[in-house]
Structure formats: structure tokens, C-alpha cells
């Protein structure tokens, strides 16, 4: 029998913490961090005007797009579907957060990693759908490039998550469960090897999946004028921006919790735990931003060979070791 309290807790978890609102806020703060850091690396100031050291700039940008800018529509543009798909992507991410120990309402079951991965795929589906619901040649080329990229990168993400959970929740009551892998990891030397390999593969694949330089091939401002996002405006663009940065925040958070041990060496009950998580999160983000600032865009075939060489191979090796261990 499900109590009213549980339902309320679930709703609050999905909508506020660590779900929708939390993800959007963390996502936009992540955007601020990346913009500021890239700005400094490029001899610019970066966001500055709104809020202390420009912290509120991304929020101001999104709010402006939502309430001030108009939505431009044209024939052949599937407006409603666009919004629905992006909302679904955002919702799926928020729901996936319930699998982590950050959530007061915990979801765990044996083999729940499958559901987790399924939920993660929704953002990609949303972005691919953007390309298909607009009749602009730039968007079409952009979405075909995204699909190519995803075709190679998604298996990497799936393989590395499965390999890690396989190792970490080996002897637990709920095998292959995200929650028990994070909260109660079983680690030996071989397991450590698997995790390091998976982390490398996962980390790079996140950059591919979230279209960060040098993998911003589907967006490619100077080639495709924004590609996927070329025809978005007003609230829809705001939604796309929120979805994009929430995805980056979500995936980096998962990397922090699953591969880097969350608050380790502290535990989840410790009041300094969130600080440790934040520091690890920022370190990952710093590396991503550093790569982003020091690389040019590569060609799609260069990207796919890079993914196969450095990501797919590594993650498959990790999976083989994990299954043998």
C-alpha cells in the first residue's frame, strides 16, 4: 500500500530535488561555470553583469528567451511536438535522478540500470527529433550528424555504465542496480581497473553526446549556423538550452557519483559530503571546459574513428574484464 507521504515524496523528488528544478538550476550554474572559464581562457571576461560575478546571467538569458522573445514559427515546423519531446527529455532526466542516493525518494531494483539507461536516451531522442521536425537544410544536416555521432557514442555510455555497475554491485541483493552501486560499492583491484577504463570512455562519450567541442559537429556554428538549433527561438530555444545544460549536469553528476565515489572518502550521511561531491563535479567540469577551449572542431569521420579508437574499444575492454572478474 502506497502512502500519501510516499506519493508526495516522489512528486517532490521528481519536481524539485533532485529532479527538475534542481537539475535546471545546476545545469544553468554549470553553463555559467563553463562560460566564465572559457572566457578567462580566451582572454575575455565572461558573464559579468547579472548577479554576483555574473552568476545569474544564464538564468537571465533563459528568462528573457521565455518571456520577452517571440517564438517564430513557419510552415512545416512541428511546434507542439518539439516542445513535447524536449519536455519528455527533461522529465526523463529528472526521473533518472531518483536512482541516485541524492534523492529522498529512492528507486532501486535488481537490473534497474536498464531503466536508467532508457531514461537517459530520451534527451538524445529529443535532440534528434528537433532536426526531424524542422524543414531547414541546416537542421537536417545537423540532425543527421548528431545521429551518426550518437550511433557511436551511446554504446560507449551504455557499456561503461553496465561494466561499472556489474563490478560495483556484484554481491549485493540488487545486482546491476545504480543505487546499490553508488551507495554500497564493492571494490577490488580488478574493479578499480574497470572503473578507471569506464570513466575515461564515459567521460569522453559525454562530450560527444552533449556536443561539446571538439564534438560540436551537429551544431557547427560557422558551418551549419547552429545546425540543430538553427530554427529554434523564444521559449523553445530556452527549453533546448535548459535541456542541453541539464544533460551535461546530469551526466557529469553521474560520473561523479558512480565512477568517482560521490562523497568518498566521506560518506553520504556526512554534512561535508555535498561539498566533496561539488568539488569532484567541478574538477570534471574544469577538464571538459579545458578540452573545449583548447580544441577546434573535427570532421564527422575523424570523430567517429576517434570514438571507436579511444572510447568504444576501452569501454568494451572494461566490460570484458568486468564480466570475467
Amino acid at each position, binding site marked *: 500500500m502506497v502512502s500519501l507521504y510516499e506519493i508526495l515524496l516522489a512528486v517532490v523528488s521528481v519536481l524539485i530535488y533532485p529532479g527538475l528544478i534542481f537539475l535546471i538550476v545546476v545545469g544553468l550554474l554549470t553553463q555559467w561555470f563553463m562560460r566564465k572559464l572559457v572566457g578567462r581562457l580566451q582572454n575575455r571576461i565572461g558573464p559579468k553583469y547579472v548577479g554576483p560575478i555574473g552568476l545569474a546571467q544564464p538564468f537571465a538569458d533563459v528568462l528573457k528567451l521565455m518571456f520577452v522573445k517571440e517564438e517564430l514559427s513557419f510552415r512545416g515546423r512541428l511546434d507542439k511536438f518539439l516542445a513535447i519531446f524536449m519536455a519528455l527529455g527533461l522529465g526523463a532526466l529528472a526521473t533518472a535522478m531518483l536512482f541516485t542516493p541524492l534523492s529522498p525518494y529512492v528507486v532501486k531494483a535488481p537490473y534497474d540500470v536498464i531503466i536508467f539507461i532508457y531514461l537517459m536516451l530520451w534527451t538524445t531522442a529529443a535532440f534528434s527529433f528537433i532536426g526531424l521536425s524542422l524543414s531547414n537544410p541546416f537542421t537536417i544536416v545537423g540532425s543527421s550528424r548528431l545521429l551518426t555521432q550518437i550511433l557511436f557514442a551511446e554504446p560507449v555510455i551504455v557499456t561503461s555504465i553496465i561494466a561499472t555497475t556489474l563490478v560495483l554491485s556484484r554481491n549485493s541483493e540488487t545486482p546491476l542496480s545504480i543505487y546499490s552501486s553508488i551507495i554500497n560499492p564493492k571494490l577490488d583491484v580488478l574493479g578499480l581497473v574497470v572503473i578507471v577504463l569506464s570513466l575515461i570512455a564515459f567521460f569522453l562519450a559525454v562530450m560527444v553526446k552533449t556536443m561539446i567541442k571538439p564534438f560540436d559537429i551537429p551544431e557547427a556554428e560557422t558551418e551549419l*549556423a547552429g545546425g540543430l538549433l538553427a530554427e529554434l527561438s523564444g521559449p523553445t530555444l530556452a527549453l533546448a538550452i535548459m535541456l542541453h545544460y541539464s544533460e551535461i549536469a546530469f551526466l557529469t553528476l553521474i560520473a561523479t557519483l558512480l565512477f568517482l565515489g560521490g562523497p568518498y572518502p566521506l560518506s553520504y550521511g556526512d554534512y561535508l559530503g555535498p561539498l566533496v561531491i561539488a568539488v569532484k563535479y567541478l574538477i570534471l567540469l574544469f577538464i571538459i571546459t579545458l578540452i573545449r577551449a583548447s580544441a*577546434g572542431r573535427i570532421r564527422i569521420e575523424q570523430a567517429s574513428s576517434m570514438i571507436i579508437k579511444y572510447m568504444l574499444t576501452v569501454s568494451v575492454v572494461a566490460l570484458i574484464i568486468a564480466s570475467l572478474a
Partner: protein
Amino acid sequence: MVDVVKTLYEVLGGKILRHEVIRDGVVIDVRPEDLVSVVKGITEGLGGIYTVVVGVDGRGIDNTYHSIYVFSLDELKTYVLIRVRLSPEDPKVESITPIVKGANWGEREVRDLLGIEVLGHPDPRTLILPDGWPSNTYPLRKDFSYCERPRLDNPGSNYVPQRSEEVVALPYGPYHPLLHEPEYFELHVKGETVVDVEYRGFHVHRGIEKLGESRLTYNQVPFVAERICGICGFVHNVCYCQAVENAAGIEVPERALYIRSLVLEVERIHSHLLWLGVACHVLGFDTGFMHAWRIREPVMYLAELLTGSRKTYGINLVGGVRRDVNRDSIEKVVKILKKVKEEYDHFVKSLTSVKEVVKRLEGSGILPKSEAISYGVVGPTARGSGLKRDVRVDHPYAAYKEASFRVPVYSECDNMSRLLVRVDEVYESISIIDQLIDKLPSGPIMAEDVEVPEFREGFSGVEAPRGEDVHYVITGRFSKVYRWKVRAPSYNNIPALKVMLHECPLSDAPLTIASIDPCFSCTDRLVVVDVLTGRKFRVDLRTLARRGKL
């Protein structure tokens, strides 16, 4: 010059009706029916490279139209101007495009603006005038008033999409983040490969040549000429002044020549740094973009120090310069350049060590040497294809005789070689400035006697950062120019993009377009009236509005 004339007579024999030696070139008169064979003799026999076609409404001089084909004889260090005189009633001339691909645009321009019919042209579509321009109205004829605005017929709305099932037409322009000026490239893409490209330019309509010929006096034109380009305007300014000086036989004081060279080199440095930044941006390497422009900033300051403005210096007049440089600023110049060189060194090393950037640059946008010659490409585009062409060496002007420098040439013919040419040129420019400052003579900066006689021809070339810029001038009455023709470097380079873009991966197409450092506003200075249109189809504003809305 005697040798040149002798050689010309040896190669062309009796086809030369008469010749006239001008400063920096030889004008030969030929019969219209001999034109093609003369051009063949010049290109095949003497290795002449196409420079420009100039049309002149000479009815006010000798009651004929002139069509002048200019070729650069780099080895003989001179230009040869082949002039045919055409009947005033029905000017017609055989096309030379079948043998010289580069003349394609030049001949169409002459037809559009002066009504000189070109027979046997392989691509006789309108080039410059907008669709709907009334027939038999030629804006550069002398009987066409500069303030006249003809009514355009409605361009119509017969919109026919031109893409087949497999080809996606990607519109690059008129407004696109890649192009910072309005220009239209339609890339036909199959998968990720560009199979064809369509170009439609001439969206910027200023009518500067007409303005210069009808309203301005000699010494007003340089200021307008400088505004042809927003990056390398000074080259147009110098080139015009030199053309008039050549026509009038004015001797410019040595110090003025040095100052011109100094400022030209400062302009080259800032332009190349600007381009390097843009190239990084096109590659998605924005960090490189920001840092290139950071390094460029002191160079802009340097320009201000020498001339009083960061851009559009306005220091040139026919006969010399208006503003001297003082000793204090020269000391600062040396100091600033030293710092710029250090930072630039560091920047270039980091740029060429980013693997992604190098991989994207190498092997893309190939322009073979033979095509480069046929299209008559100029500047770094030519030097990246193994052609050793540089106006500063081939047709020395200003104070370049006094400086020793290397002309960087790379023969890989790809985007990387064009980049390396520009990278090396910045070092050379810094060295030229150092040398000129050491030797800077004292003395006046303006010629004492500036008299411009009527109806004299002058021709001059200047090596702009983008390549050879040429101006042709016929002096006129009442302190005005009778004919002023400008040919900016991009005018010769853009047609060669068709070769470079063929079978190019889509991701490299923007870089290839950027690799010629196209300066569209220089190219576009001739059109008079505006209409938004693609080449194969026409879309007027009404259709666009109707089709754009839900």
C-alpha cells in the same frame, strides 16, 4: 622597357597596330578580330597571367568604346594592356574566357555596365546588375547620369526549387555566421560531400566608380577609394594615387614613398592577424580567434600612432602623403613590433601544434597550379598553389626596392599552405618595417608640382594582404578622372572557389571559402540597385514573406 616592347613585337608580329609605353606597363592596340590570337600569344608565348578587363566608354575621347585586357608579365616585370577599339554604335568583341578562365567575370562586367557585347562567352548570364534591370541601360556609360535610378521590373516569383532527391542545397548567405558580409553561396551537398557550388555575389551596391568619375576631383577620390574595403582600404588609396601619378608622370618624394610602404605593411600585419583569427573561428577554435585578435590590438594602436586613425587612415594624396611620422612614434613602433613578434611566435607555435586544426587544414581545398594560373588568382591564394607572384617584387612600387624580403611560396595547394604563406608574411612584414625605419630618409612628403594633364592612361598594382589590387585611370577634364577602374584581389580569387570546393567535405567548405580571405565588399563595389535574389531562381520580397509565414 625597350626589351619588353621588342619581345612583344617578336611574339605578336604585325598584330600590334601601335604601342605606347606607360609607367609600369605597355599599351598595345590590336584589331578586335586579332584579340583572341594576341591573348593566346601573351599567355602561351610570354607566360602572361590574366589581371583584369577594363571597359571604357571612350566616345568622349576618340568616339569608340575601349575594351582593355590586362596581363601581368611577371618575368619581364611589367603589365601589358591589350586595347581593342570598338564601334560606338554596336560594340562587340570576341570572348577570351574559353582560353583564359579568369576573364569570365571581367567580360560579363564590361557587358553589364558598358553594354560591350561579348561573343561566344560560355556563361552569358547577368553578373552584376540585378534581375529586372531594364535592357539597354548601362550605368557606366557617360550618358547615364550618376544620380539616375531606373525602375526595376518586378523580378517575378517563378520559384523553382533546384534540388534533386539526393542533393541537399545548403544556402550559405546572404547572411550566415561564416560570412561577415552579404554574399550567397549555394552548396550542393551529397551526404557530407560538396558536389557543386553556385555563387551569387554583388549584393552590396555602392557605385563607387561612377561616383569617382562623375562627382569627385582627383584628391577627393583617394578618400572614397580607402572606403572600398574596411580591412585593407589603404591599398586602394595608394593604388589609385599611384595610377594617377603614373598617368601624370608625377615624381613622389622618397620620404612619402617610405611612409606609404610602412603603413601598407602595418596594414598587412593587422589584416593577416585578423584572418588567422577568423580561420580559427571557422575551425571552431575560438581560443585561437580571441588570442589572434588580442595580438592584433597593439598593431592597430601602431597604425593610430603612425597615421592618427586605427583604420581608414586618409593620409594619401596624389603626389605624396599628408602626414609625416615623427621620431618619437618611430621609436615606439620598433618597441611595439618587437613585442608583437614575440607573442605572434608563441601563438603560431601553439596554433600549428593543435592536431585538430592541422588535420582539418591539410589536404583540403586543393587548387592545382595550372588552375591557379588559368583563373589568374593572386596573393596568398596563388602563393599557396606554388605560384611565385608578388606585386612588391614583380612590379616594385613605393619603397619596396629598398627592402630585402622573401616571398613565401608553398606548393601543397591546400588550405594549410595558404595559412602558412600568411603566417610567414607577417614575419616578412615586420622585417620590412624594421628595414624601412632604419633607412627612412628626410625631406619633403609632398611633390611640389602636381599637374594632371588630360586623357592620359595610368595603371598601377599594389600587393594587398589578399593579393594584387589594381587600379586603372584615364585622367579627364576639370580635375576629374574620366575613367577609374578598380579590381580588388578577391575578384580574381572567388571564381577559383569552384575548383577548390569540388568534392570537398562539407565540414571543410567554410574553411576553404575563408582560405582565400574573401573581401566581398571590395568585389561588390559596382552594383547600383538592390534586389534579393538567388541565381537559378528568383524570389522577391513578397514571395519570401508569403512562403516564410505559416
